[in-house]
């Protein structure tokens, strides 16, 4: 239950009690989220949501880096054959130098 999922902010508003709320789209399902902990977010940002609270903005550049890793891994698995196993493990993708 500690899982938090990223959603795209499609609405920002303030409710009757003065709490900053919004709506986030999780792959087609739109849910209410409380934005009190993420005052910096804007419409269209990706936020990480847990039990109805946005806890953090998802950094786009870093997300792209991770998806590149995934891509790299998938390419590696395409090359996969029994003899390639060793080098694949050794050449696993590494973090680009900072």
């Amino acid at each position: 239950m500690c899982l938090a999922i990223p959603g795209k902010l499609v609405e920002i508003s303030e409710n009757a009690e003065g709490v900053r709320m919004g709506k986030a789209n999780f792959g087609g399902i739109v849910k209410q989220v409380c934005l009190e902990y993420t005052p910096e977010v804007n419409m269209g940002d990706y936020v990480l949501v847990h039990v109805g609270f946005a806890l953090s903005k998802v950094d786009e550049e870093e997300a792209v880096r991770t998806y590149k890793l995934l891509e790299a891994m998938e390419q590696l698995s395409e090359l996969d054959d029994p003899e390639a196993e060793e080098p694949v493990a050794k050449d696993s993708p590494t973090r680009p130098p900072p």
Partner: protein
Amino acid sequence: MEVCGGQTHTIVKYGIDHLLPGEVELVHGPGCPVCVTSLEMIDKAHAIARCPDVIFCSFGDMLRVPGSEFDLLVLKSRGADVRVVYSPMDCLKIARANPGKKVVFFAIGFETTAPGNAMAVWQAHRQGIKNFSVLVSHVLVPPAMEAILQSPLNRVQGFLGPGHVCTVMGYHEYEPIAERYHVPIVVTGFEPMDLLEGVLMTLRQLEAGTAVVENQYPRVVKREGNQAAQDLVKKVFETCDRKWRGIGSIPRSGYRLREEFYEHDAERLFEVDKIDTQEPSVCISGLVLQGVKKPHDCPAFGKQCTPQHPLGATMVSAEGACAAYYAYGRHLEAGKKALQPV
């Protein structure tokens, strides 16, 4: 050791532990809040849910956790008003709509969930919603990691840190632990590639002999965490000793409500103090939670104990190690291995 139950789930689902070379063993940590909520607390929840005029609200995964006698679903079938909520904020709506009832929320979870629960209490306090209270059983990760590292049974040489807990709290709290116990800690995300990279970063540290905190999950986690969330959590909660199911009491490993929010404290309002409990003796979930044993080391795993008839908490929640092993067929594998001639 991966700390978080969500990480355990991903690892077992994608068979990441099986893909790694034999020298690398992943043991599963205590990071499933449903699993570690003490039996006393569950029995307290049941005692409160049975009171007249109570609407008892909980996250869905708590409904099937066995207490000493039954679970919340059984209580519901016997007529108790038990409701599943998506967010603690939903309880405030229920409380406003039912002024004649007492709405109680079972506030469990790690640091990830604490800001949500803190906000619900804070808003109830601010808006004067008097018929809302919380049964608090919050647990904290760093003291549990220290308890594991201090145990004479400890086998853990490196940690994949809990990415979402650190989203809230940051990771400076982990730096003294890495240093004191000379153990690498890599704050890690929840996708398969995050876990692989987390393992890789941990191994590089072990090979180099370093023991520092690194962040594999910078797209979400910052070193300082979420300050606004930490501020409200501190305003509403204070640390206390907390009993963990299967592990026992760990000093300063939980949150309870601060004095000024006592009118929202269900434990006080309902006087459910004296509850004696007993765990089924076959269950070794405490050792599983500390990474000492694996689910298939338990004689009941997949036999008397299944997700349909859980004997212990690590079988109840999908994030518990026993349930994850069962869901992805590890009990069948264990049977197959036993049949193979040696």
